């Protein structure tokens, strides 16, 4: 294909989009809807994962120490372990104060301050993700100066199981939705190509090569896919933004902290746009394939 042909194809795609305006709009809308559903679901998945993660990392590992433990060295060592989010030192003194506060009556513990304090020094360790907790606990237990390590083993193991299960569920549903979107888009584009089946035949008779015929359709499809997904992403951005705002403000929903970090959301949005554009193009090329055999 030489440069003249390329220019021609480019111009032709725009002309064709304009002349088939409503068909193009309808196609874009269907692409928009199917990708918005997929995108909405992906956002749900990201949030569900974050929620599980939050619950998991809120589970602290309590590390009780012998009195002779070298606190600073130990703190540094634990802090450097893989999967540790943060380490907080709780001295016997603070521990007692916490305990007293939780009892609500500080006089009950009178006389236990200072050397009489029966509580050990401790670290409270938070893991960066739930799955790391059991291994982390086991490692910390072997460190010198550590007397005892405690964490909600039962809860963690259940969380890990649920998270794994949810991950596969979400992956499965996303895959199904993506496949559904692909078929919907291809079917829609096929309709628009069907209307022009006769033209494609005539073009072949006039000696047009397959790529010469295909190219405007490819560009057209990509343009429709691109527009459709932009609309979908705009809707998701607006809708999800509002929802996130609402949840962040509403005290009743305090336990749900929606994902708002750009580095998590941006790949979803960009991925959707790429997917939609690609789908539009591939859908077009697949749809006209059988009409090219003249």
């Amino acid at each position: 294909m030489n440069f003249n042909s390329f220019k021609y194809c480019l111009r032709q795609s725009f002309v064709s989009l304009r002349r088939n305006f409503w068909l193009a709009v309808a196609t874009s809308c269907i692409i928009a809807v199917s990708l918005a559903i997929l995108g909405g679901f992906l956002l749900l998945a990201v949030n569900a994962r974050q929620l599980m993660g939050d619950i998991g990392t809120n589970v602290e590992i309590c590390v009780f120490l012998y009195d002779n433990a070298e606190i600073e060295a130990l703190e540094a060592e634990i802090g450097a372990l893989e999967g540790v989010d943060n380490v907080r030192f709780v001295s016997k003194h603070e521990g007692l104060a916490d305990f007293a506060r939780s009892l609500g009556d500080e006089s009950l513990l009178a006389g236990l301050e200072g050397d009489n304090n029966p509580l050990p020094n401790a670290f409270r360790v938070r893991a960066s993700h739930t799955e790391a907790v059991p291994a982390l606990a086991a490692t910390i237990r072997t460190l010198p100066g550590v007397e005892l390590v405690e964490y909600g083993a039962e809860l963690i193991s259940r969380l890990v199981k649920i998270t794994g299960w949810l991950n596969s569920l979400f992956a499965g549903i996303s895959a199904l939705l993506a496949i559904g979107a692909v078929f919907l888009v291809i079917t829609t584009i096929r309709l628009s190509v069907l209307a022009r089946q006769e033209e494609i035949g005539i073009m072949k008779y006039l000696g047009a090569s397959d790529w010469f015929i295909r190219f405007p359709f490819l560009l057209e499809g990509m343009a429709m896919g691109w527009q459709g997904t932009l609309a979908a992403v705009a809707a998701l951005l607006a809708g999800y933004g509002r929802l996130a705002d609402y949840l962040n403000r509403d005290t009743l929903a305090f336990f749900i902290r929606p994902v708002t970090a750009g580095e998590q959301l941006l790949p979803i949005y960009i991925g959707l746009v790429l997917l939609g554009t690609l789908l539009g193009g591939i859908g077009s090329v697949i749809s006209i394939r059988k009409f090219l055999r003249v």
Partner: protein
Amino acid sequence: MIKFRNVTKIYPGSKQPALSDLTLEIDQGEFVFLVGPSGTGKSTLIKLLFREQLATGGQIFFHGRDIARLDKRQLLKHRRQIGMVFQDFRLLKQKTVFENVAFALEVLGRSTREINFKVPQVLEMVGLAGKEKSFPAELSGGEQQRVGVARALVKDPILLLADEPTGNLDRETSWQLMELFTDINRSGTTVIIATHAWDVVDRMQKRVLALENGRLVRDEKRGSYANEFQLI
């Protein structure tokens, strides 16, 4: 340039052959009329040459090459060098008159400049100046036919195949078109026209191939539409 050797065409589903055992030769630069009653295979012969249809038996050679054996690329090249006027026009409905004619050049990868120069010229020649922006649906049958002719002429083909190019035209316009075909023939293009326009055929005194029931019944260097005995 063109050689038919014992060519037979039987359409799938029909028992009667549309063409049977056809052998003929056409040289470069000839001007040939294909005549005969309706349904005798004139369109079929043209479609075989254009390779819209494949022969059931026999061989067709174009420049010495068996056209049944062209691969995909050679087939494109084959069709690109032929100007074809279809009996049913086959215009691109989504394109304007100008774009329809321009398409023949775009397929060949010609420049926008050349296209903008040549297309109006050809449209003028076939009497369609001023209709550039119309869509086929907005044209009369005769006008659509002339768009088809313009599309075939614009690329200066080495072979012009025209299937009843004057079928929808009045006498005056028919003659103008025939003059166009004569001009292009003079510049070296081989012209093959299937037609029922007996007065045109009789006046022009060109080679006539007469078909009847799929068989070649007459081949005259300077022929007329009908056999002299039939006229009586």
